[in-house]
């Protein structure tokens, strides 16, 4: 366990959506922490709850969402107990967010410079002239020519717009940056540049990042630790490279074997049969058991709890009891070979 006090500590967070037919639990008992200067990746497919968690951390989820349990601590502040005025200070100054598509964050009828000035002046007493200077600095830092301060969003390319959004997020130098699929809509070359820029900025300013995406190869390359979410729960957490080389949870294994690589040997891939569950009516017991090749007796009956494993790892799976070591990769590979899962799930 790390000795440094984490900058973000999420404990048993629970978020529900109130629907006419009952509550849908979008995030259930989610616990993780982020250390200062760390990049924490949150991965999962659609409906797993990762975006819900991110938005809940800033308390910007609209109705019908309600936070029904758990605690969120930013340094020593209990985020869930903040009132509106305190939340306004917390947002952007302590924690800033880069949303999925820059077009969601940028006002198309406002110049980008003005939007960032808005953000600055909302939180700090600053004359417009001073704010403008600061914005030019920020644009420079994120790699936009400062002379484009008066450009409208549609005059910039996709990569530029995303950089502008990052500039807006960094305007107040927040210690924690949440990024929700920031590069998904961008070409891979632009994505690489943005990620490079982000690394440089992180080295320069020392902020932490909560990076949310479904692109696992990107996460494994850029994160320090990764949490895998499935159907609203964290099912595994480990240092990034460890997770890739030795996934403990069968879902993680399945995910790691769902994307082909350009480098390295060519592998036969299977994906994961079935589809993510409907959260209105999730499977009994372990939510993954109906798609799991290694499911056995307890899996449909009880929900496994997150267990600590050596090497700063956690996993929620009955195959792992924290005492005996279970090699998920070998077991899954054996199953694939013997059942020819590749053929069965075409």
């Amino acid at each position, binding site marked *: 366990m790390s000795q440094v006090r984490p900058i973000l500590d999420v404990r048993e967070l629970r978020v529900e959506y109130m629907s006419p037919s009952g509550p849908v639990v979008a995030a259930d008992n989610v616990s993780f922490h982020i250390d200062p200067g760390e990049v924490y990746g949150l991965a999962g*497919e*659609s409906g797993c709850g990762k975006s819900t968690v991110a938005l809940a951390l800033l308390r910007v989820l609209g109705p019908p969402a309600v936070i029904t349990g758990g605690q969120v601590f930013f340094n020593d502040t209990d985020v869930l107990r903040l009132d509106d005025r305190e939340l306004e200070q917390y947002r952007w100054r302590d924690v800033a967010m880069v949303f999925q598509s820059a077009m969601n964050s940028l006002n198309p009828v406002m110049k980008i410079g003005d939007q960032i000035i808005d953000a600055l002046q909302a939180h700090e007493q600053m004359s417009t002239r001073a704010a403008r200077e600061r914005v030019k600095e920020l644009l420079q830092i994120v*790699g936009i020519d400062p002379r484009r301060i008066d450009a409208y969003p549609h005059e910039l*390319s*996709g*990569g530029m717009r995303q950089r502008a959004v990052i500039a807006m997020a960094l305007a107040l130098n927040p210690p924690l940056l949440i990024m929700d699929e920031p590069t998904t809509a961008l*070409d*891979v*070359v*632009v*994505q*690489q*540049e943005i990620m*490079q820029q982000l*690394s440089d900025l992180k080295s320069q300013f020392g902020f932490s990042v909560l990076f949310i995406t*479904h*692109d*696992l*190869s*990107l996460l*494994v*390359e*850029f994160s*320090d630790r990764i949490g895998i979410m499935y159907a609203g729960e964290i099912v595994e957490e480990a240092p990034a*490279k460890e997770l*890739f080389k030795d996934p403990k949870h069968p879902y993680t294994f*399945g*995910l790691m*074997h*769902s*994307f*082909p*690589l*350009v*480098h*390295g040997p*060519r592998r036969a*891939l*299977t*994906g*994961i*049969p079935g*589809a*993510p569950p409907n959260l209105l009516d999730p499977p009994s017991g372990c939510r993954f058991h109906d798609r799991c090749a290694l499911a056995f007796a307890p899996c449909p009956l009880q929900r496994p709890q997150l267990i600590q494993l050596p090497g700063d790892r956690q996993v929620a799976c009955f195959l792992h009891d924290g005492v005996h070591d279970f090699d998920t990769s070998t077991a899954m590979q054996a199953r694939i070979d013997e059942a020819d899962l*590749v053929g069965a*799930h*075409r």
Partner: protein
Amino acid sequence: MTAQEPLNGEVLLSVRNITKFFPVGGMFGRLQLRALSDVSFDLKRGRVLALVGESGSGKSTAARCVARLIEPSGGEIWFRGQNILQTEKKSASLEYRGDVQMIFQDPFGSLNPVKTIDHTLRRSLQIHKKAHRGKDATDKVRSLLNSVGLAPAEQFIDKYPYELSGGQRQRVSFARALAVEPEVILADEPVSMLDVSIRMGILNLMERLKEDRGLSYLYITHDLASARYFADETAVMYGGQMVEGAESEELVKHPAHPYTQRLLDAVPDPLAEHGERSGHQRWEPPILVDPPPGCPFAPRCPYVMPVCREVMPGPTHLNDQHWVRCHLHGSGDIAVPMAAD
């Protein structure tokens, strides 16, 4: 099967020197957006050709030209020994539509939301007279659903698209295409909008269908990794031009064009260390409106030479299957020893 039916590996459909211009810009002095320039490729029976490129590369436009959804501004498309752009000038014939089908990227938009799956599949069958009304059609619909992995078919027949998941909808799109018994399927980013764990299922389905029915695929994607996984041959496009083509494994191992090299470098590599790769120049999309002469990659190319800004090189064959259009390797069809990296 006539004597002229191509055998496995033989050329089914040949695209030659296609260009496409779109008029853009104000009322007067219309500008031209050059979406495709001198694009040529062959589709072979039982083989998959991937067209890889990013936004603005023209890969989707090329597919839509082959699908006759848009008309090229110039060039030829040869199918069954005829240039169909000449023989079917105004619009594609029903025969052509019965041979060349297309799958679209968005599983949520490619099925009519107010029609049941049954209706959608039946129309395919009826238009091409592949089934008689009534029981024959019902049986064929069932068998189509089974062949794309949607079983039991009864569960899906009367559903509306919104009741199915993304992966299921794409399978229905495949069923719709298969109903006409095509020779060629143009797949425009068929898995880009699906969840990661489901993509493999769809790609494996495509593989199985290819083997069972001798299909030929044009696989459009921005993801070089999935092209390597699924396609036999891969061609890279940039700014409306084809810049390199080879067997997929060869392309990934020995990329010759600087753009291909850049692409490969940019793909996230889980095995690489954090921040290991060197910084690169600012990336801007290629200029497509009123483009300057020469190679469209010239403004971004680390190895650019004066001739690159004047003339677009012809293809140079590096070996039997591997060609590249780059002055570093030659300007025509004579292979020049590669410049030192």
